[in-house]
């Protein structure tokens, strides 16, 4: 397949400017770039979701137009989207064959369930995916849903498979599974287009790498010719400092202590965070990390155990109790649990501090405006104005809006759940710097992340969880990713050797 001079404009934005891209049989071609660089737009043009304004698409030597997603499928282009398009209350098999279910003969054209389940099982087996086709999709984990999505993409014969940030929500071993699958696809001659924010992966599976920046084609390189630093420079257009910045951070007395905390998905968790300290919480997805944060914050109920703030035992049943104690949670999914997308930036920032900017329930608009503008400036939130709806901001800026909300509420115990998921390299760096600045100003930060390099870069200390309990605690000094991984898989050092 070959794309030449693809151009696409949205009202007021040139999303793609004469972009070239080509894909050979059996290769994995990685597409990288910051958010807004045009990766998703390009993918959507290939998969038929958008129409290009100009340029040519050539598949197997024939120049053609892709009219709609269905047409793309018929051409053998399969897409695994970042956000799943699965129907939660139907079975895996029903999802795989959605709209193309095998039918029984006869006037009613009823769905042939046994045949559908059998074919789904064959398909899953051929892809070496171990999932029961009769199970309801809602009951699957994120990684399994993704596998179903891939199986769905391959239920039609495909020559090209597009992955849009497939590993964003996966744990390291799930990623390994996925990579194995991609290798298999490659060996069968399928061309793979792979979008990612994680540069480490790029070298693991990629043959070639194309970089986009601001809708423009930057360059295509062979994976063995470039380094991470080169790629970052190409993506951002400038060099980014990738060192640990720990200058002048003082770690003070203990602020938060959790003892024997037990909830639905974890038990007897002990941990503490000190003033000015960034503490990581690593582990596989499903190991209970998120639930620990949510329970400390009062979003979920604790079944047992106690939480101490500055040595004093506190009871938190509701998020508002936590906020009253200046404890804040940056949720894992900012769109679902964090932001009121249809409301403007200012309302989102001030949401948790309404008490302090109102008398007898009546808002003081002037005071609100002053505070909001102050935080927009302080956190460098890029928005056309404080009245812009949050839905129109980029992921990194949305994340900053939530952080601004907590800072505005003067929170100093900050629980961050995947703070940099789905945001681009530049914004990631900004969020990291922001976290370090907050710690420098005396905040106590507990951060959950699936990206081990991120934890190693910013944390002073890291706890690791395995199946609902703490399986390791490491200082930043001498920490390696193997140590975290082993603890996350529940292996002791001896077993690992």
């Amino acid at each position, binding site marked *: 397949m070959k794309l030449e001079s693809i151009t696409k404009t949205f009202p007021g934005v040139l999303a793609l400017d004469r972009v070239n891209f080509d894909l050979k049989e059996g290769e994995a071609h990685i597409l990288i770039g910051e958010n807004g660089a045009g990766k998703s737009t390009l993918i959507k043009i290939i998969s038929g979701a958008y129409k290009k304004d100009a340029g040519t698409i050539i598949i197997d030597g024939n120049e053609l137009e892709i009219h709609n997603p269905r047409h793309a499928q018929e051409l053998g282009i399969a897409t695994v989207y970042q956000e799943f398009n699965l129907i939660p209350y139907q079975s895996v098999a029903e999802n795989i064959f959605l709209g193309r279910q095998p039918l029984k003969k006869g006037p009613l054209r009823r769905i042939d369930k046994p045949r559908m389940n059998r074919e789904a099982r064959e398909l899953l087996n051929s892809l070496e995916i171990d999932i029961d086709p009769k199970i309801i999709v809602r009951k699957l984990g994120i990684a399994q849903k993704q596998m179903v999505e891939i199986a769905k993409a391959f239920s039609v014969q495909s020559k090209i498979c597009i992955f849009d940030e497939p590993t964003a929500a996966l744990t390291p071993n799930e990623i390994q599974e996925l990579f194995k699958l991609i290798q298999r696809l490659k060996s069968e001659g399928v061309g793979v287009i792979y979008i990612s924010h994680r540069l480490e992966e790029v070298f693991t599976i990629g043959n070639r790498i194309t970089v986009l920046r601001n809708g423009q084609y930057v360059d295509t390189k062979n994976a063995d010719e470039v380094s991470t630093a080169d790629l970052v420079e190409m993506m951002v257009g400038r060099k980014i400092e990738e060192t640990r910045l720990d200058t002048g951070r003082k770690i003070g007395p203990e602020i938060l202590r959790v003892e024997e905390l037990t909830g639905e998905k974890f038990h007897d968790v002990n941990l503490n965070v000190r003033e000015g300290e960034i503490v990581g919480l690593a582990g596989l997805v499903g190991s209970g990390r998120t639930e620990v944060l949510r329970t400390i*914050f009062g*979003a979920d109920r604790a079944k047992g155990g106690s939480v101490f703030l500055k040595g004093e035992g506190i009871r938190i049943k509701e*998020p*508002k109790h*936590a*906020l*009253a104690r200046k404890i804040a*949670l940056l*949720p894992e999914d900012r769109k*679902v*649990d*964090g*932001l*009121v*997308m*249809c*409301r403007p930036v200012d*309302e989102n920032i*001030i*949401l*948790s501090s*309404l*008490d302090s900017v*109102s008398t007898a*329930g*009546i*808002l003081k*608009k002037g005071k609100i405006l002053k505070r909001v503008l102050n935080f927009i400036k302080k956190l460098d939130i890029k928005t056309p104005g404080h009245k812009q*709806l949050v*839905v*129109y901001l980029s992921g990194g800026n949305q994340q900053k809006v939530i952080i601004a*909300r907590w800072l505005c*509420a003067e929170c100093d115990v900050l629980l961050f759940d995947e703070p940099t998921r789905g945001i681009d390299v530049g914004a990631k760096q900004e969020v990291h710097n922001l976290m370090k600045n907050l710690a420098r100003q005396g905040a106590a930060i507990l951060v959950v992340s699936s990206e081990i390099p991120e934890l190693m870069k910013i944390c002073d200390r890291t706890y690791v969880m395995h199946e609902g309990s703490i399986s390791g605690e490491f200082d930043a000094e001498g920490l390696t990713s193997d140590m975290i991984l082993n603890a996350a898989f529940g292996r002791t050092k001896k077993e690992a050797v």
Partner: protein
Amino acid sequence: MNNHEKKNISQAIGNFFLTIFKEQTILIVFGFIIIGMGISSPVFLTRRNLLNIFLQSSMIGITASGMTFVILMAEIDLSVGSVAAFAGVLAAKLQVMHGWTTMPAIALTIVVCFGIGIVMGIVVAKLGVHSFVVTLGMLTIARGFALIISEGHPISGLTDSFKYLGQGKIGIFPFPAVLFLIIVIICWFFLSQTKFGRGIYSIGGNKEASRLSGIPVDLYKIIVFGVCSAMAGLSGTILAGRVNSGQPIAGESHNLDAIASVIIGGTSLFGGRGGVGKTLIGTLILGILRNGLNLIGVTPYWQRVFIGTLIIVTVVIDRVQHRKEA
């Protein structure tokens, strides 16, 4: 003034008109309808007719103001028509059968209605039953009680002060219309100037995010259902005052008219966007359409078709304009 400032100002003016066009489509529609009706019918733009429209719209408008709170929170209240009928009957019975004076009778009625709303709110917020179901149930329950209290017959014989509620005038303005405007202003104040209002918008926009931001979601929901029912109760008593009796079968079309007013005004059924000012416009559009179509001789049967179409078209326009936000 330097160039930069000039540019900013012209940009601001441009933005202003753009926002008007995008956000206030309904105002433009409103303007066109008035002009169109004015041209088509000589009677339409007379003071008498306009005041009449206002009067006829005010009862639905008061209910719709309460409904705005509910819809902004992405909930729905289908029971308002029945609650209004119940309120009319209850207030009339207290006065006619038990000799209560007007003020206490109405005050108690509104308190009872508020209580009905609170009960629905508790079931919705605390037990997690969808408001569609809860209020659909209450639609029947309240109607049942209206029939029980009145034994199926209208209760007439209201005092003059009760009638004033529906028929009185302040200067040239009908009392219900004045009350409607006052209520709109109060609702506007609560929605845009208070913590409570901010809470309602954010709950409607994202309930879970609001909870995690410390907004008392359940409490606000319960209060909002109470307020909506209380408003329905108030409009029911006004209606009773207007027709000189408490009618157990009154307000059959009240539910849909109130919801339609909110939606035509441009408040999103998905919650989080809209306001009571929009509802005021929506109510008047509905009133003007009915009145104007009457004046130019369109039968009530066709009127229904027009109004139904209008509801769908407004929502379609809203969906197109705000595709990304919902």
